């Protein structure tokens, strides 16, 4: 029995190997599976799947930043993300106030400033943080003053971008008072001025000032009881990651990687369940014949007369199902797929003499159906399964697109829904719109390649309706 199966598999493989598109599909499938297995390794944000909607997990990224590699195609380079550690530390303690001074060197080589610069540390005590940036040309711009009082070790996060407006405006006023004052302070971009050369009209035209910027954080601690640990500066680049970020600062590559397993799960589970149901249904219908057959065919007709996706949408809107319920609901409509073909194959098998023989020696109906008829349909079932995977994935994506997705998972459809509702199309944020849809299409293509290849081998003459 096992040997027989092995032989059959070998035979199948030697045929399958010849269909080039099928092999390409298989390679893609293997890549997707590897992506699922090595998700923690290839994702820069390994918890992306679980904390996709947790904004604190993403807060150190830039908003709507294009992918890093876009720098290769532009003449004006964007600043990349980096983390600065090991600052020059300077501590003075006069007994009443302890003053800790950290100085980070940031080497700015790009043409466009970073999205944000964030100082982070774990701290305890009553602390006043004063941050300033010393530019390569010697100008010092003070940015923030924050006061914290922690009784136990807490995370401190000071983001400079938003608070840099005052300092930048002052700097611009200092060198070009007339033009600067004609622009309202709210409308300027602090970092754009901070990282540009001093010149006329500097509040509106920016010429990058490259060189080493010193980010200086002075921490005043009255009573000298405070503790500071692990000080670091995170520069969140204006380009970020393999696929950029969305407008909630989420890393899109991580989201895409986290979505692979859900797409596979939804696709494979739905198609496996529904094909199994459909094949059994079709065989039973063919085998029983007569009244039972016509009854089963009427029921089948009712199901195929329903427009599946609209029904799913309304069910989704009314019942707000979880992904598991959604998969079951999809199965309720998807099982009709193989019925027609299976029934016609079943009718042929039924006429075979060995089925007659089995009946004659008194085999039960269940035995004949499951032992003699279903196994013959297994090859067809696999082909049919492969071909129904893409529709399940597209359906889930479409339902998510309407905002009816299960919020506890990260699916490509949901990323696209976010992109659509944030107006990513209008803003040209292609790195947010293209990858998720491309992944859906690629998975669809993968299974289409495999399914059509199997179809070609297994059923050279059989055509579905």
């Amino acid at each position, binding site marked *: 029995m096992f040997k027989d199966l092995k032989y059959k598999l070998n035979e199948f493989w030697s045929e399958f190997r010849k269909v080039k598109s099928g092999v390409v599909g298989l390679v893609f499938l293997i890549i997707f599976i590897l992506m699922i297995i090595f998700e923690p390794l290839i994702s820069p944000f390994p918890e992306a799947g679980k904390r996709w909607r947790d904004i604190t997990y993403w807060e150190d990224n830039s908003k709507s930043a294009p992918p890093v590699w876009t720098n290769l195609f532009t003449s004006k380079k964007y600043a990349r993300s980096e983390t600065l550690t090991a600052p020059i530390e300077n501590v003075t303690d006069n007994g009443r106030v302890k003053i800790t001074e950290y100085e980070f060197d940031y080497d700015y080589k790009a043409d466009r400033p970073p999205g944000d610069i964030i100082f982070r540390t774990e701290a305890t005590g009553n602390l006043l943080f004063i941050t300033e940036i010393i530019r390569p040309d010697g100008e010092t711009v003070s940015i923030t003053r924050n006061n914290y009082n922690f009784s136990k070790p807490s995370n401190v996060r000071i983001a400079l971008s938003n608070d840099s407006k005052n300092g930048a405006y002052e700097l611009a006023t200092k060198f070009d008072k007339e033009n600067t004052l004609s622009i309202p302070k709210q409308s300027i971009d602090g970092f754009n001025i901070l990282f540009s050369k001093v010149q006329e009209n500097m509040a509106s035209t920016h010429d990058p000032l490259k060189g080493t910027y010193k980010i200086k954080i002075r921490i005043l601690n009255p009573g000298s009881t405070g503790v500071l640990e692990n000080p670091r500066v995170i520069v969140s680049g204006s380009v970020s990651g393999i696929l950029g970020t969305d407008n909630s600062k989420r890393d899109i590559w991580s989201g895409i990687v986290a979505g692979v397993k859900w797409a596979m799960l939804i696709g494979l589970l739905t198609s496996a369940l529904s094909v199994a149901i459909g094949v059994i249904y079709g065989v039973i219908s063919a085998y029983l014949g007569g009244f039972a057959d016509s009854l089963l065919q009427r029921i089948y007709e009712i199901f195929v007369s329903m427009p599946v996706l609209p*029904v799913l949408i309304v069910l989704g809107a009314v019942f707000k199902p979880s992904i598991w319920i959604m998969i079951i609901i999809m199965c309720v409509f998807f099982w009709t797929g193989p019925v027609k073909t299976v029934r016609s194959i079943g009718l042929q098998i039924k006429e075979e003499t060995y089925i007659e023989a089995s009946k004659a020696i008194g085999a039960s109906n269940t035995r004949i159906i499951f032992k003699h008829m279903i196994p013959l349909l297994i090859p067809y079932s696999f082909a049919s399964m492969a071909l129904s995977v893409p529709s399940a994935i597209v359906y889930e*994506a479409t339902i998510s697109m309407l905002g009816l997705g299960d919020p506890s998972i990260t699916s490509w459809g949901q990323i696209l829904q976010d992109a659509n509702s944030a107006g990513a199309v209008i803003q040209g944020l292609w790195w947010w*719109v293209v990858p998720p*849809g491309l992944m859906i*299409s690629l998975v*669809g293509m993968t299974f*289409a390649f495999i399914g059509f290849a199997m179809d070609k081998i297994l059923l050279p003459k059989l055509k579905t309706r």
Partner: protein
Amino acid sequence: MYWKYALKRILIAIIVFIVIIFIFSLLFNKVAETTLKGQIDEIVKAEVLSMSKNNRNIDIGEYRKSRLEFYYKKYHMNDSYVEKVFWRTYDTVTFNFGRATNMKSSRGSDKVVDIIAEALPRTLILFTVAIIIEIILGIWIGLKKAQKAGGAMDKSTSVATMIVFGMPSWWLGMIMIMFFAYVLKLFPSGGMHSVPTPEGFAYFLDYVYHLILPVFTLVLLGFWGNAFLTRNIVLGTLQEDFIMSARARGIPEKNILFGHTLRTSAPPIITMALLSLLGSIGGNLVFEGIFSWRGMGNLYWSAVQSNDIPVLIGNLAVTTGIYMIGLVILDLIYGFLDPRIKVGG
């Protein structure tokens, strides 16, 4: 003979439609009832308010109760569950979908029927245009493929078919808008008219101009499948004995392909094409939303967003109806084109 077949097919479809609506009524009875109760409460509140202004002597509580009673009775809300489901089925089948909770048609009507009636022709225009182009293009390319089966053109188009197999039409729509409307600025990003809307013939041109990009997107995605199916069917027919026989009779290849083969393959090709298009109805609902084409698909989207249950359920009933009409038309075309169709089959 044919009429008998057609009549039978239509009758079966009507019965199936009623059964499906019955199933929907079962599923959505509770949520529809909750919505209806809310709407009745609103109406009664308004009535009580106006009554108490005009007539101070009336017992407000008693009046309220009687009005509620009146509406509950009118909408069969005191009946048993089974009766309620039957009434709901009856109402839906007779296109009596009730009132929307917060959506309105462009003329200001809050009747679900009016809202849907307004959206329906827009959807029909968009998809009919796309379907016609898809079928023509699909058959044409499919024939070319079948003629040189296994050739470079056949293989490459087959691969293309598989590449777009799982591509959501609405995603392609997003990409097309991004590229053609925002990068190249060739077409409008959506909607059905410019603002302000031009009059007369210019109105028509403007409409067509807005139609081009969505239709192009649908066709770009849809015709591959048709070409692939046409190819397979035509190839199958080309291997039939009667084609061989026609060749032996010295009939020119052109007549064999466009006459004998295409005429024989027409019923399954048209069935396949229409069936695949009917099947794509679902994905195309979201597609409309992407292009701000205010048809039935967009209606689903807006109804989901404003949680307007009566509109959703009404829209579903109408979509199902259209879907079934599509299936019936398909069978009727098949029966008409194929002289072999068995009466009563």
